[in-house]
């Protein structure tokens, strides 16, 4: 429901009444075919919000070319006709489907739902108010969002990086970090926006791709690349891409001359004053909660943090202060895309927990007419050639192509459409299929990647098997790439149609199979992530088997005392363990290990060993939450040698126990990044900066006369944790920056130790005489991960952490369907993020477990029994391990061999078909016969 706003929420969890205001679109979505003629004719230009103010759109517009829904809308503030009745109205006059409706009114809706998820996102900080950066005054100072639009091929400059002032190419650009974040002076956003360091590096790398020899510099205070693979990207940006990083907060931007050049005046890390000139300065703007979201939150009783983000508990990170209302994404605190996606799934899990009894109560199945049997019939092919507005017709002579199609063998009906994808053409296609008895369809239009599902559904609704369809891509493969030669393009279009006709003529109806699902889950690992996901699934009504190697549950969390929000972990942990052990749906196996695994989504069989006894567990999905372990820095910084040196976890324990070394300690030194962010472990362990800062605060609060030092490379107290960093500084904790080439040196002293470090402000070595030295050590993956990875055939990355299917969009899925990951096993993270990821894994798993069966695509490999002799060449090439060899002896005692395809694991890639020397296996819908016919058609003149 677009153009809608929530105005009120009443009720309680399980039963809410939501009032929604729908703003008028002034365009009928059932009629609009997004042809764009209205926008062409509209005379009113307006600043384009989508392009972040770098371009203009019309008063009637579509947000962007790939918008969903792809329907136009009229901006009532700027439309001439809506403000002055009787004037203009050109769009209405020219719209080919009569979709314009100036009488559209605001509608109010009231809906009744069981739960609500708030995911209203963020607004970029607007740097105009703080004039010091010259934004809004000097045209070559832009925000990062504007840079994204400039770099984008669909943006105002089609990806050419030029100066906004004069269009000249950009040769030197600078990024200023923390604009609108970590700043109580120019704005009131004291928190860290978490994403800007990373996006600035990404934009710099992309900009360098666009412009040869581009000089890019990033000015930062702390480089916060704490996510998975981010540290490596940062290193590559420095070494491979040559991006310059300068640790300095530049105070402002000045114009240099009157041509639009910009001047930055700053002090570099050596204390020298430097002046540099740039073509373009990009302000890395922070994320903030939009004003109307703050108002809505106040109205419906959602508590916000002092920074105006949704207040949540670390132990229920997606639940707001109002029961039954969940949240996810940037509203719950500034975060990047993988975190937002994880939280989206976690919120879904939260809702599913709550509404489990009501599952499937309001969903509807789509119904289709019975399929017409076309076996034995001669092909009666219908060809629909699309003009695609002028996208195809502007280059290709569509009429000639249609005439040609009519001459092809098997074709009994040809039709030309302006927009084959429009709703009315779907109705037309259905009519034609029925009246003409068409039994094969060719749609000569655009790409099947976006439109095949639409046409499949159309012919299915007309009673035809949905696979009796072939598309010829006259747009992406023809008009878009051969726009300079219409004659040849038209010939190619004819070739493409001829090939499609040849292939579809030999197409048989295909039946999609489905596999049944065992509605049971298996969770490997009984730490917080494992327990939370097990509980979430159990709360949703599924049976769960939880496997834990040790004698007790809790994993690494047993070493922790509190979250960054100072919430009590041991108490939470005890409560969690109790819930797990008492839950009737959770089968707990302590002191057990996984020793074998096989199967595929919906049908896994895992063998575990407990006390020498083996047990086979059948399950539909698996969640791997095997956790991590702390790095022991033997031999580094005196660890293991001097008794005053501890790891962070050891220090916590020792302090809690009241050890006199800590109690009477006067000076404490923390060294960050021990073991992390270096060659053998090129990743950031994410939690250590926050942990050390909290430990330092506690030490200072106990006794303010203590001297506490934190030696860091970059302080990574990201998001709202930034407040802790400030508090530590206010309490007098001294932060000293060190670089990899000048690591602190630790020696034994008469009393305690000396730590020598080069002070980055004083520019001289500092020797600190300390009573205690705490090393913030790296988090490593559990060594068992590699073994488990082999058993389940899942990938592990170069650092030993499990590799997810897609870093951004599928952060809890493995590329093997039905397997998910959560917690430290995926990457170091704090407790609240482990819980969110665990819930996300549970939600993803539930979306499979809640079904009785999974329908599979029909385009899977098929064995031709008469031709396959079991040579097994295809088995080796299959990337999905979907082929197995079957052997047996027939009734006459003759041995036989052949292969069998696991349809659930097969993805229809066709490698087997390409490898088989006997035509013994083929991908349904792409038989060798069909492909040969297509090739012959292509070569025919």
């Amino acid at each position, binding site marked *: 429901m677009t153009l809608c706003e929530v105005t009120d929420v009443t009720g309680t969890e399980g039963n809410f009444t939501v009032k929604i205001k729908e703003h008028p679109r002034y365009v009928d979505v059932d009629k609009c075919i997004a042809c764009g003629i209205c926008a062409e004719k509209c005379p009113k230009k307006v600043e384009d919000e989508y392009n972040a103010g770098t371009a203009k759109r019309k008063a009637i517009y579509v947000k962007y070319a790939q918008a969903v829904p792809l329907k136009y809308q009229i901006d009532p503030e700027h439309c001439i006709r809506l403000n002055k009745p009787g004037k203009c109205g050109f769009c209405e006059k020219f719209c080919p489907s009569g979709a314009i409706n100036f009488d559209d009114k605001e509608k109010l809706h009231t809906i009744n739902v069981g739960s609500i998820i708030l995911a209203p996102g963020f607004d970029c900080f607007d740097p105009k108010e703080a*004039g*010091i950066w*010259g934004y809004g005054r000097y045209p070559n100072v832009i925000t990062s969002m504007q840079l994204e639009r400039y770099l984008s091929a669909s943006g105002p400059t089609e990806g050419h990086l030029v100066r906004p002032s004069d269009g000249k190419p950009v040769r030197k650009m600078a990024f200023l970090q923390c604009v609108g974040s970590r700043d109580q002076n120019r704005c009131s956003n004291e928190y860290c926006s978490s994403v800007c360091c990373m996006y600035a590096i990404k934009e710099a790398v992309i900009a360098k791709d666009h412009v040869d020899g581009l000089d890019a510099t990033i000015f930062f205070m702390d480089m916060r690349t704490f996510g998975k693979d981010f540290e490596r990207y940062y290193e590559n940006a420095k070494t491979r891409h040559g991006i310059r990083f300068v640790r300095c907060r530049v105070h*402002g931007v*000045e*114009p240099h*001359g009157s041509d639009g050049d910009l001047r930055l*005046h700053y002090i570099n890390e050596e204390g020298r004053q430097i002046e540099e000139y740039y073509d373009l300065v990009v302000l890395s703007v922070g994320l903030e909660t939009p004003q109307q979201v703050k108002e809505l939150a106040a109205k419906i009783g959602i508590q916000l943090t002092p920074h105006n983000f949704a207040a949540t508990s670390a132990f229920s990170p997606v639940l707001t202060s109002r029961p039954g209302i969940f949240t996810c994404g940037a509203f719950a605190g500034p975060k990047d895309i993988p975190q937002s996606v994880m939280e989206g799934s976690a919120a879904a899990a939260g809702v599913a927990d709550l509404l489990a009894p009501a599952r499937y109560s309001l969903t509807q199945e789509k119904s289709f007419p019975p399929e017409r049997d076309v076996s034995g019939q001669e092909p009666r092919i219908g060809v629909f050639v699309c003009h695609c507005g002028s996208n195809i017709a502007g280059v290709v002579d569509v009429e000639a192509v249609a005439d040609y199609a009519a001459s092809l063998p098997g074709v009994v009906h040809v039709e030309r459409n302006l927009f084959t994808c429009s709703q009315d053409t779907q109705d037309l296609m259905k009519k034609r299929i029925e009246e003409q008895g068409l039994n094969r369809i060719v749609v000569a239009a655009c790409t099947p990647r976006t439109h095949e599902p639409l046409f499949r559904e159309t012919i299915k609704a007309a009673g035809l098997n949905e696979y009796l369809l072939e598309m010829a891509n006259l747009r992406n493969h023809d008009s878009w790439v051969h726009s300079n030669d219409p004659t040849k393009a038209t010939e190619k279009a004819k070739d493409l149609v001829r090939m499609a006709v040849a292939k579809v003529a030999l197409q048989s109806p295909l039946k999609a199979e489905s596999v049944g699902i065992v509605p049971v889950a298996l969770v490997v690992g009984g730490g917080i992530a494992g327990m939370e996901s097990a509980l979430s699934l159990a709360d949703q009504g599924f049976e769960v088997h939880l496997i834990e190697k040790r004698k007790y549950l809790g994993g690494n969390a047993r070493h922790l005392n509190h979250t960054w929000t100072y919430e009590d972990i041991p108490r939470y942990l005890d409560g969690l363990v109790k819930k797990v052990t008492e839950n009737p749906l959770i089968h707990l196996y302590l002191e057990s290990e996984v020793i074998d695994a096989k199967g595929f989504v919906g049908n896994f069989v895992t063998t575990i060993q407990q006390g020498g006894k083996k047990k086979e567990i059948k399950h539909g999905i698996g969640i791997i939450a095997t956790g991590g372990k702390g790095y022991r820095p033997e031999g580094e910084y005196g660890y293991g040698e001097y008794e005053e040196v501890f790891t962070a976890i050891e220090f916590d324990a020792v302090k809690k126990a009241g050890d006199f070394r800590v109690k009477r300690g006067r000076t404490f030194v923390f060294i960050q990044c021990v073991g992390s962010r270096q060659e053998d472990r090129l990743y950031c362990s994410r939690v250590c900066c926050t942990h050390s800062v909290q430990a330092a605060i506690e030490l200072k609060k106990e006794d303010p006369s203590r001297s506490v030092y934190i030696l860091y490379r970059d302080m990574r107290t990201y998001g709202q944790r930034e407040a802790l960093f400030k508090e530590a500084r206010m309490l007098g904790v001294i932060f000293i920056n060190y670089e990899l080439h000048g690591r602190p040196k630790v020696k034994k002293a008469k009393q305690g130790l000396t730590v020598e470090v080069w002070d980055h402000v004083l520019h001289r070595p500092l020797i600190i005489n300390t009573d205690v030295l705490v090393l913030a050590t790296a988090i490593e993956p559990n060594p068992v991960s590699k073994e488990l990875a082999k058993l389940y055939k899942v990938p592990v990355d170069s650092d030993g952490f499990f590799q997810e299917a897609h870093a951004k969009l599928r952060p809890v899925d493995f590329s093997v369907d039905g397997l998910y990951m959560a917690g430290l096993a995926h990457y170091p993270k704090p407790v609240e993020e482990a819980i969110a990821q665990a819930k996300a894994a549970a939600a993803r798993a539930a979306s499979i477990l809640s079904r009785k069966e999974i329908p599979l695509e029909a385009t899977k490999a098929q064995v031709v029994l008469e031709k396959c002799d079991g040579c097994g060449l295809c088995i080796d090439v299959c990337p999905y391990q979907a082929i197995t060899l079957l052997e047996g002896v027939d009734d006459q005692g003759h041995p036989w061999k052949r292969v069998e395809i696991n349809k659930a694991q097969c993805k229809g890639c066709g490698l087997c078909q390409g490898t088989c020397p006997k035509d013994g296996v083929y991908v349904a819908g792409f038989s060798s016969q069909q492909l040969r016919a297509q090739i012959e058609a292509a070569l025919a003149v």
Partner: protein
Amino acid sequence: MLERYKIYSVFDLLLEYYNEGRININREIHKQRTTYHDPCNYGRKSLKTFGHGYFEEGRIITKACAPNFVDMEPNREGNYCCGAGGGAWAMPFKTERVFYGRIKARQIQETGAELVIAPCHNCRDQIKKSLNQEYQLGIEVKYLWELVADSLVLPVKN
């Protein structure tokens, strides 16, 4: 005592006189390009300490007397210090003081102004007596009240 007497700055006074029409300004006298220097104390410091920085008042008056006005970049709260504050004008560290003032000198040069209005006596001295010579700026420097005084249309004696 504070309640008996009205205490305010010369900015407020001049602006009051101007707005109430108690003074008349001849705009033909100062036709050269003029710029305005924001003193630290009246500007940034006043903003931080009292919540009000005198940025606009001086500009309104200056523009009223010298219509050919151009702002320095950056200006107002972000404007650069003249370099002679905190006692630097009176102290013997001349080389340092002149070095600090180089950025102010460049700012003035970049405006192309011939007349600089410096409302603070310290800034005015630095700019008029030091920066103008050391950096050969070739400018005239006036106090804000001086600009107004020089622009006054005197009432006709009866």
